[in-house]
């Protein structure tokens, strides 16, 4: 019999038992197991087959007002019998921290029961022959170009499960599946250049993944649209960001919206709760209860019950992510310690319509490097995309940067699309910003 949730529940409970017996006042144990299979095809060769099962046990300990965390993949009973008491002893050597307490039961009581639908039987039943067929379909479509150098495609599936238990009565578990299909294409461009493109589609459920030939064709189209790319201009103009690329900006914006960053004074949102932090076009919801979402959950890593959490409503910062520890430090009630799925409601137009509205500017299709300062919001990113000409995506451009401040940028957000990117925990739609600084070729 392969190990199942019952075994994981027992392992988590046993770890908690060993920890309290070794002297911990409180303990939180999580036992996990994941099986993954990856197949990779390059051109006409099966290049890689990887198949594995991984298991682990993690433990959070509260000992005499002190706190520590531990993780091991050595699950032999004899190893655990020494690992856990050693972990408790190590915790005793730390300093007392009055802000560290196990999650109070009232935060995990009355969990939601919405059907999350995270397990796909079809993903669990994928056969080795199917994986190879799908790779061949993708690679054939991805190579259909006279300038083709190479196409690498892959199929990966994953089945994961974990169970958690605590000394103060928490118990919970979750099971999920995922499948990803996609690949990368390299074409022979001008001179030395070999433009590349990629496309990956994934879901918790097999039927949400588009046809394999369509995925391969899309990867090829991403490379082909880079042919003839030139250095973009230095200009201040409108920036339209495709859904696939828009998630990056939303992640950067939301990155410092948490109690840890507030407590260490490394957040440009500090002191801005209840204030406008973006134009009124922006609403951002953390949605852990989204059916089939990659990050959907009934409770978070601390056991806190899930709920839909509005972060930004019509441009106003309403909530940040607050875990129990940093929440106590800065005197804020816990919300949830980490991001789940992010959604951006309110859009009424798709990319094509928003390009038509913009008339001219730069369409960003992907980013290359760059960073943002979480304390000030100052950012600078490399990018690739197209000139917007007569309301459509025109000539490809690259080797250029966009630079500014995230709070200023989002105050210049003039439209969001109705076309969220489905293959991510950040369901970002097309975003349109006005008056953005690009740097490229000398004017």
């Amino acid at each position, binding site marked *: 019999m392969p190990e199942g949730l019952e075994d994981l529940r027992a392992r988590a409970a046993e770890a908690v038992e060993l920890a309290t017996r070794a002297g911990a006042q409180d303990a939180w144990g999580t036992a996990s197991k994941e099986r993954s299979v990856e197949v990779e*095809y390059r051109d*006409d*060769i*099966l*290049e*890689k*087959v*990887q198949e594995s099962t*991984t*298991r682990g046990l993690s433990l959070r300990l509260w000992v005499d007002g002190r706190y*520590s965390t*531990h*993780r*091991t*993949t*050595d*699950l032999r009973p004899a190893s655990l019998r020494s690992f856990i008491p050693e972990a408790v002893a*190590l915790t005793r*050597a*730390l*300093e007392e*921290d009055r802000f560290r307490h196990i999650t109070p039961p009232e935060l995990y009581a009355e969990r939601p029961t919405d059907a999350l639908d995270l397990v796909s039987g079809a993903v669990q039943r994928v056969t080795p022959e199917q994986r*190879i067929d799908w790779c*061949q379909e993708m690679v054939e479509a991805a190579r259909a170009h006279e300038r083709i150098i*190479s196409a*690498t495609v892959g199929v990966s599936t994953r089945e994961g499960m974990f169970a958690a238990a605590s000394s103060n009565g928490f118990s919970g578990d979750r099971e999920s599946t995922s499948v990803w299909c996609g690949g990368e294409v*390299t074409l022979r461009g001008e001179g*030395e*250049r*070999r*433009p*590349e493109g990629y496309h990956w589609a994934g879901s918790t459920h097999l039927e949400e993944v588009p046809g394999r030939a369509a995925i391969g064709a899309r990867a090829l189209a991403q490379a082909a649209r880079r042919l003839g790319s030139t*250095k973009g201009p*230095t200009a*201040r103009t409108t920036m339209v960001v495709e859904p696939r690329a828009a998630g990056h900006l939303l992640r950067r914006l939301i990155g410092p919206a948490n109690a840890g960053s507030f*407590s*260490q*004074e*490394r957040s440009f949102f*500090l002191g801005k709760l209840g204030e406008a932090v973006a134009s009124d076009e922006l609403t951002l919801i953390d949605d852990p209860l989204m059916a089939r979402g990659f990050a959907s959950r009934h409770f978070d890593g601390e056991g806190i019950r899930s709920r839909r959490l509005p972060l930004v409503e019509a441009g106003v910062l309403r909530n940040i992510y607050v875990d129990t520890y940093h929440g106590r*430090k800065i005197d804020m009630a816990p919300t949830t310690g980490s991001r789940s799925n992010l959604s951006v409601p309110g859009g009424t137009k798709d990319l094509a319509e928003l390009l038509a509205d913009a008339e001219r500017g730069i369409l960003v299709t992907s980013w*290359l*490097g*760059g*960073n943002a*300062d*979480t*304390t*000030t919001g100052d950012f*600078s990113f*490399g990018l690739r995309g197209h000139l917007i000409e007569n309301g459509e995506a025109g000539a490809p451009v690259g*080797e250029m*940067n*966009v*630079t500014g401040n995230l709070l200023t940028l989002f105050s210049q957000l003039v439209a969001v699309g109705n076309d969220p990117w489905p293959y991510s925990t950040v369901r970002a739609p097309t975003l349109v910003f006005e008056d953005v*600084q*690009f*740097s490229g*070729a*000398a004017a």
Partner: protein
Amino acid sequence: MPTFLQACGHGTQQRVVTGAPAGANVFAEWFGIGQEDVKAGLAALTRHGADQAELYFQHRRTSSIVFQDGIVARASTNIDQGVGLRCVVGDQTGYAFTEELTRDAMEAAAHTAASIARGSAVVAPEELRRQELAGQHYRVEVPWRDVGIDRKLPILRRAAAMARRRDPAISKVELWWNDVDERVMIADMHGRLVLDERPMARLYVNVTAEKDGQRNSNTANIAARRGIEWIGDEELEQVTRQAVERTMVLFEAGRPPAGEMPVVLASGPSGILLHEAIGHGMEADFNRKGTSIYAEMIGEKVAEDFVTIVDDGTLAHERGALNVDDEGNPGQRTVLGEGGQLRSYMHDAISARHYGVAPTGSGRRQSFRHVVMPRMRCTFMEDGPHSREEIIAAVGNGILAETFTNGQVQIGAGDYTFYIKNGWLIEGGRLTRPIKDINIIGNGPETLRRITMAADDGRLDTGGWTCGKNGQTVPVSQGIPTVLVSQLTVGGENA
């Protein structure tokens, strides 16, 4: 049906391997198994043939501390152990791993990995023979597993106090500490057995300062394959001074103009230029597949005569140092380009066989869960004929880049970027005011052609870097003398 390559002919013969008999102890002491278990795993792994096959055992113990508001906010230990089994036939790889170090689990994983092959069994080695390390580049006095947290806490308290003392405007100091003990054992189909112990330590200093209602934060870190004896007051003074100075200068810093201009890269951390502009493009897997812009450029003159670029695994205690790579090949020095001419790619065993050359000791993996790829170790450029002052004076208007947070490259198009956290504006050949937070973008081969000056002040960065490729991270180092790139695109702001 897909084309499965037949494993036959080259590489499958039992190679004669010299070395001392392995002895029973090491298997039991390091991994709680016996030599017979390893041999059974190898036999199962090569039952359908192989050009190359090995078991990669790894035990990694990590200890981390987050020090916040004057106390430990979180201490963690992580034990990760397992074995990765790889069967290679031509360019094809079958891979599986298990965390369970039993003969049954290893044989089951071996069968999965062996399914890539379609040939006849290779004769398994009769005995595993231990290979001596060609060099020892990171011996430590006391392994980290024997260093209690009681010896680390005073270091953190001292560092936090030093940072706070440096400037009254400092409002927050957060430290991240990390030490790692790693044991690696590689047993291959030819009976070769290689063992390596790899220590690593890193201290990150994060500082926030408040002045005139404004806040700024910045970081500095030191990292090395060293033990606790390495961290003295001098090291702590250096890293805390860097963190505070880099933070305080941000209050005065602005953005340079946007567009193309000359960029001077200060010595040390600016080695990020080499990593992104040329390093990744010279990893042989990309070239074997034809997807790198450097795929047809070996032997070509691509830069000025004074440009010599090296990737070296043998530099003592460097974060990127390797006694042996993750395929068991000796760590070594690889000259990527010399006298302005491209010389050699970085190879793992697959690409070395493809090109008919010797592996360069560049085969690396994140852990036993990951396949091997050619990767960088410590990448740097040799000194040039100019001085730093000469170079800055030679620039009319441009920028000087000093500290960096990250970079990225597109292998095929050759476009690469790196992000400047701190730097200076150069006006009329002089440093005039500090700049911050700008991305730089350029094209690899174009940039090599545009390195017009290099100084005689080369050094390695004392801060640690982590390189990501195809979802795998490995520790690396980098360094460079002060250089001038005559034209790059700077992500500034125009009024």
